[in-house]
């Protein structure tokens, strides 16, 4: 990943350990990013079990939750990211 350049897309995914939803969400978002914004994104995956205080700080309720930090406006997505179309729309990647 080209960490040197400022990535266009900054995404943060909150998961809860290795639940089926978590695993699916990680797989799904990774494949979407690879397909549409390869090389232009930064995906941070946070396991809430090891960062419990993050849940309150980041207003996490439903998981998995994906936060699009950049580009603005910031956007929250919940679910296992299986609804491809919705994810793309929310990320501003309409085909």
């Amino acid at each position, binding site marked *: 990943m080209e960490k040197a350049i400022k990535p266009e897309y900054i995404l943060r995914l909150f998961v809860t350990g290795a639940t089926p*939803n978590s695993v699916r969400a990680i797989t799904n978002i990774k494949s979407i990013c690879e397909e549409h914004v390869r090389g232009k994104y930064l995906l941070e995956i946070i396991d809430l079990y090891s960062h419990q205080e993050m849940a309150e700080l980041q207003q996490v309720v439903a998981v998995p939750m994906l936060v699009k930090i950049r580009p603005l406006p910031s956007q*929250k*997505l919940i679910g296992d990211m299986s609804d491809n179309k919705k994810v793309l729309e929310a990320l501003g990647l309409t085909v």
Partner: protein
Amino acid sequence: MSNRTKKGLSALDNRTLKKTLTGITGLDEITEGGLPAGRPTLVCGGTGCGKTLLSLEFLVKGATLYNEPGVFMAFEEKAAELTTNVASLGFDLEKLQKSKMIKLDYVHIDRSEVEETGEYDLGGLFIRLGHAIDSIGAKRVVLDTIENIFSGLNNQGILRAEIRRLFQWLKDKKVTTIITGEQGNETLTRHGLEEYVSDCVILLDHRIKNQISTRILRIVKYRGSIHGTNEYPFLIDADGISVLPITSIRLDSKVSSKRVPTGIRALDTMLGGEGFFRGSSILVSGTAGTGKTSLAAYFVNEACNRGERCIFFAFEESPYQIIRNMKSIGIDMEDHVKNGLLHFHASRPYLYGLEMQLVEIHKIIQKVKPTTIVLDPITNLANAGSVSEVKSMLIRLIDFLQGKGVTVMFTALTLSTGTSEQTDEGVSSIVDAWLLLRDIESNGERNRGIYIMKSRGMRHSNQVREFLIRDTGLDLVDVYLGPEGVLFGSARETQQLSEAAVVAVRTNDSSRRNREIGRKQKVLASKIETLQEEFESAKEELSRASTEEELRKDIFEKDRQTISKKRSEANKQVKPGNKR
């Protein structure tokens, strides 16, 4: 065999529900010990019914009274807003948060900000809550109002399953939880949370009647526990929530046979010489201006003079007004107020509903701990409720006061219908003693009469007395009972004067007769004296005569002797010569 029974018993002990004290005034009494420990309780009700406050007080009291930290998870209000809102109730959330006794977490969900993209769960919420609980070692948790999640997220199926899982998880965590829920149209909560919380459900309500609001609490269900099933009014004021477990089911309060003087000696005399029983309830009824307030003030003043604490609940006049007015009949209540013996509590009855009024009275009584209270007048309470409501309120008040051994005097205004002696409130049957003050109009003036209609458990006069309000104080005088009937006021005075006149005339007559006798006696005495004197003089005359006679006799005898002597001498001389 005995071993087996023992085992059975201990198993039973384990099965009986453990409870957590809420620390909320009255609620622990109704629930007989608080909420089910380690289990969720649902508190539901409409908007503004006090759910949030009740649940927050549960946490604050837990932290301050029972040393049990608590987590408050707010789905509605932000933490800062919450802190400000409850500061007016004397809950210092900031301090409690700093000392790690309370943790506030505001959960924000907005449907417009979140896109749902497939399967999810509420794992984030679980972690958040778990973290909050573990970070302060919480024993109590409040979720206020978790149903808001339903408006933030779409997938109802997931939410229901997750909430069910959450409640189970909370049970496993052994935290005592309050979950609040907004009341639905036909159901207790909009999203049927009551299905998941099967242990304890408390319903709060907020009713408006005659433009007066009353808050009501009812325990809909409490599995495995005895609990009060009635609707209990509750009050939210500067000290938080007070629920009133009003009706004492049993009539078993202890009674005193000690007596308290009324402050009017003549009235004590009418009551067998000693006054009312301590802890009894006394009704003073009468038409306007018959002196009910004065009588009540006298009663209270007398108690204060004995050094007892009293409360005067004034529903009509302000304390200053009462103090000023009572100075005109010779009692100064101001000193008692300054000494802290006399407490005035003046309010317009329609300020609160009846139940609120009752809760308020309870609170003040519990704070001041008086021996005597006055409610002046109860008639005004009817403005805030129907007659039957006032009656039931007063019955409960009397029950409460009897339990505390507080003597209470009610005054009630009766309308002069002429025949009916019944008070509007219909309380004359429930009080222990009833004084009736009555206007008696005759000869163009009004006078006050006082009757003792009843006085349980003591000999009392059946006579009407005239009730006098003078500059120097209150007094009772016997009315005139005579051939001309019962007379009051100036008629009585006139009668008394004319009687005095008759007596005077009679006295005059007899004294004249006495004087006549005296005179006659004197005349006769003088006559007797004259006769005596006459007799004396006669006697004297007679004795003088007899003395003279004696004297003469003596002299005569002497003379005769002398003569005869002389003669014999002469004879001797003559014999020789015989010629002279």
